[in-house]
């Protein structure tokens, strides 16, 4: 058995048993981050914090929410919003949090793409991040159903219907997902389970995994420079000003906390004054399976892929429009996973310093914004054609990515390093 000398004070006592001094070093004071970073590197911590906000506000909502088609709408809009003390605050925080976390996820992802942070040993960071994106999408979709308003119902109806397009098993699959032939109580209760138990658990595991994938490759920096962390750590201990790295605690976190505070100011401004974008007005009409709303659309963060789905609105030869849309949709969901392999250039550098990629990056952002905006507008007349063109553009952009990065690799002679 280990030898336990008498401890002087609680800290030492704990240290003997849990080795907290070493743990603190490994996790905080000697967990190294490059010094040459900007506020975009704080997005990860903002995401972790926003997730915590969602978890806590969600627990409060859970105390009064009733997962039953006859009680759900009133439990949210009357009990929580009007009767429970500050219930409205928790609901606004939860709804705005769910919407804003996607904005930050997208910023975080595109930071990764811009700086090439998914390459050269960082592939697992990217994949674990994509896993989180998928889990958050599931969490958002299942949560949106819970208030059982018109949009809850009809978005659930439309999205579950998509699975019906899968050959052979489609129809059975839809029934299996819904737990009924139509969207009903069984659908609500199972999505409730997913939303409050299974998916949050998976997200927590996913975040732990994502953090772990960062340990060995370390995070990237503003120039993409390949840092020798061992050597720089020695330098830091001699003179912090001369080293290219900083410790996670307190230096990295000092900046994160500042960025987080600014973010929270913006966040709570939305919570109090501008929450409509996160709580669609149509969802304040109770669900009614007999009355289709004039416009059905998902939340804003799903619009780009929704537009790819419906962008193909006419049959091509023997292919039905719906099937082409479904294929394109599947492509859009999966393709980002392969980013580390579609980018054939070994160069790790900001997009603006890469010959073709610099155009690719900004065009991609424009295409996604166009898809997002037209994903909400009625798909009629020119709107339909713009949706079609931008869906094609989206696919073409990913098809040419390997080509232009291959070319880059050749012209820059093996890349920067």
């Amino acid at each position, binding site marked *: 058995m280990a030898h336990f000398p008498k401890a002087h004070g609680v800290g030492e006592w704990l240290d003997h048993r849990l080795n907290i001094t070493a743990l603190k070093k490994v996790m905080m004071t000697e967990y190294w981050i490059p*010094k040459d970073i*900007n*506020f*975009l590197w704080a997005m990860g911590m903002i995401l972790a914090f926003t997730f915590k906000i969602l978890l806590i506000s969600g627990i409060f909502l859970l105390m009064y929410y009733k997962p039953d088609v006859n009680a759900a709408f*009133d439990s949210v*809009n*009357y009990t929580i*919003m*009007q009767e429970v003390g500050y219930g*409205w*605050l928790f609901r606004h925080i939860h709804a705005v949090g769910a919407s804003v976390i996607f*904005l930050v996820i997208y*910023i975080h992802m595109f930071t990764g793409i811009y700086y090439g942070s998914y390459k050269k040993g960082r592939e697992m960071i990217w994949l674990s991040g994509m896993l989180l994106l998928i889990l958050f999408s599931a969490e958002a979709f299942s949560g949106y159903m819970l208030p059982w308003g018109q949009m809850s119902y009809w978005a659930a109806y439309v999205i579950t219907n998509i699975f019906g397009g899968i050959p052979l098993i489609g129809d059975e699959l839809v029934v299996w997902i819904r737990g009924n032939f139509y969207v009903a109580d069984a659908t609500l209760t199972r999505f409730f389970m997913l939303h409050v138990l299974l998916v949050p658990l998976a997200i927590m595991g996913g975040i732990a995994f994502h953090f772990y994938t960062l340990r060995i490759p370390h995070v990237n920096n503003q120039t993409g420079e390949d840092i020798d962390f061992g050597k720089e750590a020695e330098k830091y201990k001699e003179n*912090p*000003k001369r*080293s290219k790295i*900083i410790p996670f605690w*307190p*230096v990295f976190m*000092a*900046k994160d*906390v*500042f960025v*987080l*505070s*600014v973010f*929270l*100011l913006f966040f*709570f*401004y939305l919570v*109090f*004054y501008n929450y*409509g*974008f996160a709580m669609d*007005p*149509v969802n*304040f*009409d*109770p669900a009614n399976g007999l009355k289709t709303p*004039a*416009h059905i659309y998902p939340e*804003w963060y799903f*619009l780009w892929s929704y537009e790819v789905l419906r962008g193909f609105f006419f049959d091509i030869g023997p292919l039905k429009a719906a099937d082409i849309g479904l294929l394109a949709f599947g492509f859009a969901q999966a393709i980002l996973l392969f980013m580390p392999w579609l980018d054939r250039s070994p160069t790790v550098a900001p997009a603006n310093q890469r010959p073709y990629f610099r155009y690719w990056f900004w065009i991609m*952002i424009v295409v996604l*914004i166009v898809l*997002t*905006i037209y994903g*909400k*507008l*009625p798909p009629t007349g020119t709107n339909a054609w713009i949706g079609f063109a931008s869906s094609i553009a989206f696919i073409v952009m990913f098809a040419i990515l390997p080509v232009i990065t291959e070319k880059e690799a050749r012209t820059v002679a093996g890349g920067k390093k």
Partner: protein
Amino acid sequence: MKELKILAVIVVFTGITYWGVEPLAHSIFHPHVAPADFKFADLDRFEAEGTVANGKSQVEMNCIACHGIESEGIVAPMDKQTANMSYGVVPPDLSLAGAIYDETFLAGFIKNPAKATKTEHKFTGGKMHPMPGYDWMSNEDIASIIAYLKEVSTKKLEKEALELKAEMNSTQDSTEQEAIKKAAEKAHRKEVFENACGRCHDMKYAKIEATSDVSNYMGSTPPDLSMMIIARGEKYLTTFINDPQKHLHGTAMPRVGLNENAQKAVIKYMEETGDSKKEEREALAPWVLGFLGIMVILSFLWKKEVWSEVK
């Protein structure tokens, strides 16, 4: 500074996306309509003099066969269920009619209810509006009816004002007085709402149940109005209540003909019901944002200090 440039890029792209999915999309879903018309300009101008006394006898001869006027001690001739069965909808009590309906509208309505409510498309093929039109009546008689209804409402409101004053004088505490006054104002708004909308619509969260079941008469069940202030928003309601056909062409909901004040009271009451925590929200906001503002400053100072040792 570079970080500000990055921030600007993010703000611009986020702003464009926001503009597209919110203001732009909503302006397309709900095309702009002409502002509410409280003059009811599509109805004939009505210029005639009438007297309260003549109005009283006209109303007693023609109207109380169906309507009650509670404040005058006139009870409706039928109980609600029988009335509902006979007319498809319970004729509303007229105690407040003179105060909440616009005059031009009232004249137009008495002459031709379907036309004034813009629901002529519902009454074709022999179907008749449950209230008969009085276009055979002289303009003087109609003006008299309106004068009488106004008189009735004024009397009722004056009486209520006196009662309120007495109740407020029963206490010295000014906050208590304020509370009594607020409660009375809210009760008035509720009454206006019940008069104008309560024969067709439920409002569950205010424990208001429609007096009639109009599903047969209207061809559809009017929705519960509890959350409409959020589901449709004030702007939509302002033009919708004033003229439902503007937003829902061909709808069964009648134009009810409220004057501007009454419509404001209805919308305010809908807000008090559907968005009851608005005041609390607006009162709390500056505290939370102020606290976070201080956090921003403190965390900035901390960051500067920590980084001054490494940079």
